Each structure stands twice: as C-alpha cells, then as structure tokens.
C-alpha cells in the first residue's frame, strides 16, 4: 500500500504497523519519538498494534535541544 512518511510517498507492505515503520525508517531513539498519523498523535503504547492504512500520512517528531550549550571535548 502507499503511505506518506515525512512528506514522501512510499510503498510499504499491507498491515504495516507504526512500530514496523519505526524499524524500517531507522528512527533514532524510537522510545522518545512523537508520532502523528494524519495530523493526530498516536500513543506510544499503541505503536505495535496500530496498522497503517492506504493513504495515511505519518510524521516523526524528534526531541531537539537548544541553542545555549557548550561543546566540550
């Protein structure tokens, strides 16, 4: 089936879940990513059981720290 991931159209197997997509997309730190499907938040506890449907649009929202920081080596 066809879905959109981060704005890009993709073909994925039928019955792909959010959890499957997290793996296939190589999402960094998946425990701390916020996922939205068709502009609604998906709950972390339902990632493994939420099957995506034809035409769904999935976004991964990542934690990003800030500007005031010091890089020390």
């Amino acid at each position, binding site marked *: 089936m066809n879905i959109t991931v*981060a*704005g890009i159209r993709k073909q994925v197997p039928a019955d792909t879940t959010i959890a499957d997509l997290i793996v296939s997309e190589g999402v*960094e*730190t998946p*425990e*701390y990513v*916020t996922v*939205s499907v068709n*502009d*609604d*938040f998906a709950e972390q506890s339902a990632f493994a059981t939420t099957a995506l449907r034809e035409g769904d649009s999935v*976004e991964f*929202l*990542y*934690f*990003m*720290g*800030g*500007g*005031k*920081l*010091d*890089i*020390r080596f």
Partner: protein
Amino acid sequence: MAFTNEQLERYSRHILLKEVGAKGQRRLCNGKVLILGAGGLGAPAALYLAAAGVGTIGIADADVVDLSNLQRQIIHSTPDIGHPKVQSAKETMQSINPEVNVVTYHTFVTADNVMDIIADYDFIIDGTDNFPAKFLINDACVLAGKAFSHAGILRFGGQLLTYVPGEGPCYRCVFKEPPPPEAVPTCRQAGVIGAMGGVIGSLQAMEAVKFLLGKGDLLTSALLTYDALKMEFRKIKVPHRASCAVCGDHPTIDKPFDYDQAVCDLDARH
C-alpha cells in the same frame, strides 16, 4: 509619543512597510520580550530584537562566556571570555541600539523564580539547551497565559513552535515529558552548525516581532523543521492534545516544577 528624526531614520526600513508603519514601530518600541539563554539561539534573537527597537528586552543566563561559545553565539566576542553572558549581551545590544532597555538576569531560571521573571513580558523566547528547562518554560508560560517561542537545534537540524494561549498546542502537547538524561542526542555530544542558531534564533525573533505587531500568522499549530543538509523546511501540523498535563482538559500541573534530572537551569554543562 512622536518619533525623533533619528528614530525615523533608524527605523525607516520598518516604517516603510505597510504592515508596520509608524504605528507598528511604536508597538515594537513599547514591546517587552524576554530571552531565556544568551546562547546559540538567544544571541541572534537578541541582536535582531535590539536592532528592531523592541523597547524592553530581558535576557537571562547564569553562565560566563567560554571560548567554545564563540563558534555560534555571535553576541559575544573574544574579549568577553570569562565575563557573564548577560553583561556581554547587554553591551552588544546597547551598542547596536542605545535606546533599548536591556534587563539582565544573571541567574539560573528555576520553578522558584520563573513566574516572577516572565511576569513583565509580552513574549518569551526559549533559547535554552536542555529539556527540563524547556518543559519548565513551557509550563510557566502556559500557566501565566504568555505567548512563547520554542526552538531546538541539533547537528544540521532545527525546529520551531510558537505557543499562544488558546491557539493550538503547547510544547508538552507534542512531547509530553523530558527524555531521561543522555537518552537523546544533544548538541554537546553530537554538535551543531553555528549558523543553525542564526537561522532558527532569527525565526524566533521574527515570531516575537509579528506577535508585537499583531500581523501575520504565527507558528501556532505546526512544528517547523529545518534540515540544512537537504535544504528543506517543513511545517508539520500538530494538534492540541486534550490529555496534555498542563493545557489539556484536565490539567494536573498547576504550578511550575523542576525535573530532578540534570540541573533545571539554563546550563546543562555541569
């Protein structure tokens, strides 16, 4: 109050804009913006807001200028190393525009002082680097009914979200809780391109200016993400979360609090 000839000249490129004019410039001159963190994001934001003539600019930071800051924190200069960042920032801002009243807070921002510090301001810019501070600022602004700009930068990426009371989600709606320390990459471990602070911090200043002017659409229902390597900006729609602990239908947070993890201040370095 009428503008002096010098003011008319200084702000002429603003006044020429139909969205600004003398009336809008007066709004900027009467505006009060607080910048939390005089670092990679706060530095460019502070410079543009001072140049724009925003009447009162607060700047909070407990730290002193370090050599490793100068790769991106363009409000500070080499001779400022070892001096408080708020002092260095104030000097640079006032040398650009002596008309601006710069209020400095040389302190850590915590649950004990955050409500007092933000109380006087129209708009708050979150230029902090750590997640406990970001959640503290979010909660305080939501509880105080203050508009603010969230931003984060990492490696070649940046993100931005504007909160306006009653209009769209807060930062906690999107991210719920801070991740455990070291669970997600930080700039400290992973690095960041200096110009990223310039791009994203300038966008924060732009949101503050639009808010003060009352013009245009603020970034209230979307997370803007910037990927410099792909040279791509994306606006990702984000909804208000009815179960949000601070702005949801049944909030459980009724006063700001510090997360125990790391220090809940503006400096996660130690």
